């Protein structure tokens, strides 16, 4: 029996990747949930907004790299991040003015907004591929690891290694900070409250002197920032490819929904539920079992509940089960 090794193995393969992936989903889900909460529609263009923001960050990262600017052990992309955020803000504001505003004035049904966002998604889709192409882009630099598996083994003398990537560390820290900020902003500040008021009852918000266009604008600005941050962190940790970002939409929406649409805390919880269920349920417990179980009980097979082929199925099944017991998500989301 060797609990230490078992725990390290579990951390290395399940907990740490799960937490990092969960945070990435959570950051994406925050954007989705915010749009839903305040502008009241499911924004299908979010994945491509993330892709756009990341693309700008990548282009500027390359530029900085060519100038020889770097952020020491941290990725240069962090320096380019503000530029990416600003560019994305400009993009979403233009999109809003050119597209969404019209339907707001028409008081169109949410489903029309969804379809419109699908149209926007298609166009952003094309735009990003136009500029940077459909291929895989890598832009991470700086120190890749906080701690490497091999180093860890040497340090501790354990059989199992533990690796933590810089990108994972940054992701988790950022996710915590962003959520705390957002929570504070929405619930405690005047502007935040006015945004909630707008989402609740647009006409009455108007009668209270709240400027709806301002609320909408601030929402988009925050969403643009969130999308760029989420996209960049994801790209640093994995890699950037437009199609992957589009595909990311599904787990992100799943996360936002399990958590409860419109609830920032829910987005976080949802991100972890989805990420963890993907990794945990399909995990082969053989190795861990080998450490903690007595010799005679050691699993012969892989001790895997379901093969990884079903990982998406599993996360969706868990989503459905959660919804059956909590019909509007873990944190009582909205439903329009």
């Amino acid at each position, binding site marked *: 029996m060797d609990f230490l090794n078992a725990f390290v*193995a579990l951390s*290395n*393969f*399940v907990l740490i*990747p*799960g937490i990092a*992936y969960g945070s*990435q989903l959570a950051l994406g889900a925050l954007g989705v949930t915010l749009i839903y909460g305040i502008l009241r529609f499911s924004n299908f263009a979010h994945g491509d907004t993330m892709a756009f923001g990341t693309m700008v960050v990548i282009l500027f990262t390359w530029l900085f790299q060519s100038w020889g600017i770097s952020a020491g052990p941290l990725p240069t992309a962090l320096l380019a991040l503000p530029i990416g955020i600003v560019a994305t803000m400009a993009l979403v504001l233009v999109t809003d003015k050119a597209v969404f505003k019209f339907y707001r004035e028409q008081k169109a049904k949410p489903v029309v907004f969804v379809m419109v966002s699908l149209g926007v998604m298609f166009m952003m889709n094309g735009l990003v*591929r136009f500029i940077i*192409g*459909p*291929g*895989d882009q*890598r832009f991470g630099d700086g120190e890749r*690891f906080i701690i*490497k*598996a*091999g180093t860890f*083994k040497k340090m501790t003398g354990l059989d199992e*290694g533990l*690796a933590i*990537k810089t990108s994972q560390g940054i992701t988790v820290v950022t996710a915590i900070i962003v959520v705390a900020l957002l929570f504070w902003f929405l619930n405690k500040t005047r502007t935040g409250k006015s945004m909630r008021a707008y989402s609740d009852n647009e006409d009455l918000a108007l009668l209270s002197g709240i400027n709806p266009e301002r609320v909408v604008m601030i929402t988009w600005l925050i969403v643009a920032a969130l999308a760029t941050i989420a996209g960049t962190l*994801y790209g640093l940790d*994995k*890699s950037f*490819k437009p*199609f*992957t*970002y589009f*595909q*990311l939409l599904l787990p992100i929406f799943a996360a936002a929904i399990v958590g409860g649409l419109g609830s920032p805390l829910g987005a976080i919880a949802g991100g972890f539920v989805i*990420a963890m269920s*993907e*990794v945990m349920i*399909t*995990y*082969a*417990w*053989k*190795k*861990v079992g080998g450490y903690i179980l007595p010799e005679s009980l050691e699993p012969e097979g*892989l001790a*895997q509940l379901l*093969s*990884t*082929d079903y*990982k*998406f199925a599993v996360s969706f099944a868990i989503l459905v089960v959660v919804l059956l017991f909590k019909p509007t998500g873990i944190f009582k989301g909205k439903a329009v």
Partner: protein
Amino acid sequence: EGQPKEVKLGILFGFTGPIESLAPTMASGAELAMSEVSESGKLFDGATVTPLRADTGCIDNGLATANAEKLIAEGASGIVGGDCSGVTGAILQNVAIPNGMVMISPSASSPGLTSMEDNGLFFRTTPSDARQGEIMASILADRGVDSIAITYTNNDYGKGLADSIQSSFEAAGGEVTIVTAHEDGKGDYSAEVAALASAGGDILVVAGYLDQGGLGIIQGALDTGAFDTFGLPDGMIGDSLPTNVGSDLNGSFGQIAGSDSEGAEIFAGKASELGFDGTSAYSPESYDAAALFLLAMQASGSVDPKDYVSKITEVANAPGEKINPGELGKALEILANGGEIDYEGATGVNLIGPGESAGSFREIEVQDGKNVTVKFR
């Protein structure tokens, strides 16, 4: 007689959708062969070759068949494509066979297509998965690998290849600890890496694509320290993999179709002149597919599928003068003079049976961040 001044060839790949990042270099490969022929001025009486690109969406049968119809309407004399096996089957059954059109696919390697009633109209320049599995098993055995974990991209290529590697390797007495699929186009592979790591094994065989999920899996496995050596089938062989992964990949090995001609290198060289990556998956195969069409047309003196279809196997196989990439002009001339050629091309083309590529293989090892051919099999 009525030999046209312009020959049109359709290029039917998934320019949008899951393999959109592969499709452009594949198309460039095919177009390279076409422009080579046009520039040589040796086809018929100086005919030019015009590529007609169209999209399959990779996974959209409706779109793919409609576009195939469009290509035929626009006067394509042959179709280089399709790419993903699903749409390839749909095009073949619903457009190519009814219209008597020839298709040469650079990438559809599913054994299922072998048995399909194709009226002799379907060819491919990529070897079938069954053969490659045997090769890989023998490489593994020669290197003294006892146990492997396999992950494959969840499509017919990956599945077929994984099956065949598993059965060949087990037949040779090796142990397969786990066989698990991964989906391309989803960025996170933590779950797969975790399961693979837990199952263990000497090396990890990744039957995927080097710029799709395969890369993600390798990256994840290296980062977590789960595996440090990888078995790389043809979809994973290309310059971009060692470049992207870095020195950690040194010592990994695999195989790719190719004879001991320098075809692949020549092609890669020409490709980089034109600014695309000639080692990207299926780009050389696409070049070969287009070249085969044009050579067969020249040999038959006609652009009518009915006439040239029988020549495709002829130009691809011995006897005759061996033809490498860049030598299409020479080949056309030989054919014009009634001679015989054995087209080798970028991937050592050799067609057997019902339009299948026999495939000789090169064993590759990553050394100092480069793919190095260590042996021919």
